[in-house]
């Protein structure tokens, strides 16, 4: 029996290759995802562990602030230089040094552009002379000494091409400066900074620019030989009192790593979802392939049964084939996954997120890949294997290939139930108020509908192809009719083949609907609420110096500039993101619709929140709110207004003064520029651009450009998602190739007959091609319909989260349909050629 299995595998190399490819692609995606995220985690872990001195001292935070450097951070609190001396006296301290570290220092390249960090922060630090407390190692040149000298990390030096001795321009949280590059250094062991750039000044200059004179961001302490970190931390804590947070290197790394771990795990899940889709789609193809393999071999398997092989033996034989394919496919897939991970790393590198060191190839990855690849293949092969075993021995004697055209009733019932449940969940989702629950309901509904449609699609295939496929005979005559009939003759196979494409296209079109709706909402939002003629900001919301605002307001024709800053405070015990904004700017630059109170409520110690926030806290106008800053300052605010949710400003607003009083940094994120009456934007623009020229971190945008920039981010995300989904579409295309190839083999005699009675090679190729197109259009239409439903439902479910408008990108959908048809044409190339190459006589002689 084993020998038969083995012979079979070798006898069908092409088929093997095609179905193997489905496994390879699925596994490759899973493997690539795991390897890449492992590598990413390791980079960050290395970053954190090498960053920290043995013991780290910082000002105690009043509450957990989350990640620094994610654009959300705000309040800063310093450690005075005197503490360094206090710690130096503690027993067991080998070295101690204060460090300065702040965001907002950007290196400008030779063209005057900001070195792209891919959204990672541009960090400014002081140069620590004590190597045991510093994560940085000088590579070239020397340490910066005094104002006018800087050192930068080697990655940045490499990317900009700056040499030691060059004068390089820098943007700081304060002024734009120029400084001489005196050295380059490597960060940590590997130098990997995940895209962030480091600029080191001498301590005095760093404090001047980044903190305040005599103030450090924190203090690094090195333990003397034989002194335990925990022990030392305890002693330091005892010496300097409760105002400070003392952490060992391990604690520091752990807390940072867990913060980042959350962000990474989200990313991981995101990628794995796509891998899951790829495998799901791949599973279809494997089921399909094995069904066809078994159908073709019915006679052979029946002969085996007739010769005395038991059912179990036949099942085992087919499963063994699947197992072998699973093993080989997973192995190749794993290797391909390594390639995908390398590709992802290169892709991230090109965005500025440099991951150094080799890819992490964990044992877990290997095990998962094999487990998934083999399990999916074997499970997919099980049903056809069972069917094979049931082949009655008489089938061996029969001339026709037995195509079991079993009833579709069970499928119809199951599919209908799933579809109804899915539709109910979808509708429920759009009716639910709570955004999170609504999205989950829609997700559940989508899953059920996909399963329902998959179960129903053989039932739908016949009527669909009869009606829509009616075009084929009309346009292409007999060839068209033959193609259509071929597509409907085995609805299960057609449906399974089309389902793979259906899933991919359902997801692609759902995201297109969401993207289009989001873009339309962004348009409506900005048009509806931004009154300013110009917006100044960086594309990714990086913080920038208030000097920019000064430069803008000093420009002729500019009436007012509204600054917007972000920060984090605790309000009535809940950590909240707050937006600091100039009260005068509300109503002038940005228009909000107030439900209660007004924009005036922002002045003084006022707090203005959106409806959702007010509701969840139970606040109404006039209520007092206790605010607590990260550095422990308390303040009582009064709710002065409640407005309709608006993503331009965020959910919670305070005045710039309150923001500063609560420890917020003076770094702006957005500037809204109002022009004086009677001046046109075109007139003022050149002057504004000139004023902004020294600050390349920000761009000047009029309303239209601002909208486009915001929409561009949506589009970019959409592109990324679609790029991921391309994989499942490729797998689906392979499925079509597979189905057609098998069909051609199965129909050899028919093809011979057709050729004998006068069907030309070209016509034959067209017949195969049209069948492929019919199948792929069927899958695409199902997918587009489902996807549009999902997209609309999800958009509605998220209407509270800012997707206020609904848009279905019909043009884009039409393109998807065309692409699907093209996929059909391409998938048919090989099988059609193969069919056309059959020698008439050989084909007939099979009779």
């Amino acid at each position, binding site marked *: 029996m084993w020998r038969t299995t083995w012979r079979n595998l070798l006898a069908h190399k092409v088929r093997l290759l095609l179905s193997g490819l489905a496994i390879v692609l699925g596994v490759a995606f899973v493997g690539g995802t795991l390897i890449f995220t492992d590598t990413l985690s390791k980079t960050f872990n290395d970053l954190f562990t090498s960053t920290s001195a043995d013991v780290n001292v910082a000002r105690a935070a009043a509450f957990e602030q989350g990640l620094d450097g994610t654009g959300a951070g705000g309040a800063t609190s310093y450690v005075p230089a005197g503490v360094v001396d206090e710690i130096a006296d503690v027993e067991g301290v080998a070295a101690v040094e204060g460090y300065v570290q702040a965001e907002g220092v950007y290196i400008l390249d030779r063209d005057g552009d900001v070195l792209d960090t891919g959204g990672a922060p541009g960090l400014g630090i002081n140069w620590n002379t004590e190597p045991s407390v510093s994560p940085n190692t000088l590579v070239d040149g020397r340490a910066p000494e005094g104002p006018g000298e800087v050192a930068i990390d080697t990655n940045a030096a490499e990317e900009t091409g700056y040499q030691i001795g060059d004068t390089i321009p820098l943007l700081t949280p304060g002024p734009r400066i120029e400084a001489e590059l005196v050295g380059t250094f490597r960060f940590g062991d590997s130098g990997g900074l995940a895209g962030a750039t480091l600029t080191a000044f001498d301590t005095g200059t760093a404090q001047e620019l980044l903190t305040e004179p005599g103030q450090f961001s924190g203090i690094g302490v090195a333990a003397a030989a034989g002194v335990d970190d925990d022990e030392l931390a305890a002693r330091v804590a005892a010496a300097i009192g409760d105002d400070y947070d003392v952490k060992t290197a391990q604690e520091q790394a752990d807390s940072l790593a867990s913060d980042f771990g959350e962000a990474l795990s989200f990313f991981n899940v995101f990628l794995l979802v796509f891998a899951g889709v790829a495998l799901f789609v791949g599973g279809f193809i494997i089921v399909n392939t094995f069904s066809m393999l078994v159908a073709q071999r019915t006679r052979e398997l029946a002969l085996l049964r007739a010769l005395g092989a038991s059912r179990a033996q036949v099942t085992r034989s087919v499963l063994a084939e699947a197992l072998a394919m699973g093993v080989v496919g997973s192995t190749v897939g794993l290797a391909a996954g390594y390639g995908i991970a390398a590709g992802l790393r290169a892709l991230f590198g090109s965005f500025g997120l440099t991951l150094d060191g080799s890819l992490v190839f964990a044992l877990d990855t290997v095990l998962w890949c094999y487990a998934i690849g083999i399990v999916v293949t074997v499970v997919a092969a099980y049903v056809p294997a069972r069917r094979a075993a049931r082949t009655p021995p008489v089938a061996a004697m029969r001339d026709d290939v037995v195509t079991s055209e079993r009833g579709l009733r069970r499928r119809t019932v199951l599919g209908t139930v799933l579809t109804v449940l899915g539709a109910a969940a979808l509708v429920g989702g759009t009716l639910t108020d709570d955004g999170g629950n609504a999205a989950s309901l829609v997700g559940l509904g989508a899953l059920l509908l996909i399963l329902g449609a998959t179960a129903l699609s053989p039932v739908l295939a016949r009527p669909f192809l009869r009606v829509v496929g009616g075009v084929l005979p009309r346009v292409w*005559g007999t060839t068209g009719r033959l193609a259509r009939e071929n597509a409907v003759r085995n609805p299960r196979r057609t449906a399974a083949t089309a389902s793979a494409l259906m899933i991919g296209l359902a997801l692609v079109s759902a995201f297109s609907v969401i993207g289009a709706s989001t873009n339309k909402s962004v348009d409506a939002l900005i048009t509806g609420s931004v009154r300013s003629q110009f917006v100044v900001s960086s594309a990714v919301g990086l913080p920038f110096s208030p000097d920019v605002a000064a430069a803008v307001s000093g420009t002729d024709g500019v009436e007012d500039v509204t600054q917007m800053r972000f920060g984090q405070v605790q309000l009535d015990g809940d950590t909240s993101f707050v937006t600091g904004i100039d009260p005068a700017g509300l109503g002038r630059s940005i228009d909000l619709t107030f439900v209660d109170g007004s924009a005036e409520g922002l002045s003084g110690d006022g707090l203005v929140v959106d409806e959702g926030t007010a509701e969840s806290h139970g606040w109404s106008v006039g209520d007092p709110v206790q605010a607590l800053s990260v550095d422990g300052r308390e303040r009582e605010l009064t709710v002065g207004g409640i407005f309709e949710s608006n993503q331009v400003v965020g959910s919670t607003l305070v005045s710039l003064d309150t923001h500063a009083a609560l420890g917020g940094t003076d770094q702006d994120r957005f500037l809204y520029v109002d022009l004086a009456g009677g001046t046109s934007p075109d007139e003022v623009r050149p002057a504004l651009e000139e004023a902004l020229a020294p600050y390349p971190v920000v761009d000047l945008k009029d309303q239209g450009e601002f909208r486009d920039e915001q929409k561009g981010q949506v589009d970019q995300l959409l592109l990324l998602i679609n790029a991921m989904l391309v994989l499942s579409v490729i797998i689906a295309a392979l499925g079509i190739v597979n189905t057609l190839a098998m069909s051609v083999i199965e129909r050899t005699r028919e093809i011979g007959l057709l050729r004998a009675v*006068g069907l030309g090679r070209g016509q034959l190729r067209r017949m195969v091609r049209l069948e492929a197109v019919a199948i792929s259009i069927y899958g695409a239409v199902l997918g587009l319909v489902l996807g549009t439903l999902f997209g609309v439902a999800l958009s509605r479910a998220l209407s509270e989260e800012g997707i206020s408008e609904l848009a279905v990108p019909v043009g884009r959908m039409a393109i998807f349909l065309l692409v699907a048809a093209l996929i059909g044409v391409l998938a048919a190339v090989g099988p059609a050629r193969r069919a056309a190459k059959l020698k008439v006589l050989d084909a007939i002689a099979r009779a």
Partner: protein
Amino acid sequence: MSSSPHAATPEPAGEAPALPAARGRGLTKVFGEGDTRVVALDSIDVDFERGRFTAIMGPSGSGKSTLMHCMAGLDSVSEGSAFIGETDLSSLDDKKLTVLRRDQVGFVFQAFNLLPTLTALENITLPMDIAGRKPDQAWLDVVIDTVGLRPRLAHRPSELSGGQQQRVACARALAGRPEIVFADEPTGNLDSRSGADVLGFLRQSVHDMGQTVVMVTHDPLAAGYADRVLFLADGRIVDEMLAPTADRVLERMKAFDPETSAAGTH
């Protein structure tokens, strides 16, 4: 089965100088090379006259199927020329051969004559549909009525009996009024009654419609329906019998090779 079915063969009067519907000159077909070299056809000269029903007989391996394939443009010859009408098949490329088969040749194979996805009527008109031509409705009606398939036209092959399927195949072969019809063991898979129906119909098409039919068979009974029987052995025409009867053919075959003739008697 002693009645001789060919009794009333009308001679194609007044058409003596007319070109045969198909002819072969020096037809040679060699398969393989060296040790495995097999001469399937050994420089055969043959004429298939218009309006006649010719049966080709011979033991297995005699080359009878190869002769038919070469004459019908399904296979190429190693040497010599096969003509349909005035067309030398060896001068045609695949495209022209395809068109020739479609327009000038009708085929009836032993099995798998029909496309399972098409109805009987669609199968009958298939070659014309492929060509994008409208069938001659009057002629089509004649053909359909002759094979007696009118009530079955909307059925698919799977809903037809083996005999009905072969009659559909015959109707297809005739519907386009081809120059010549080639039938390869058309009754090989049928019971004797269905076989007799099909053979009777082929003979009728020759005598009533003036069709030219060439049939390969190993069944003396089937050969008895023909006007002429060619006997092949080892790639050569070794004998010819005009106005054959099943008994005479059987006798002749026995003389040939006892083994094969035994297989021919049902």
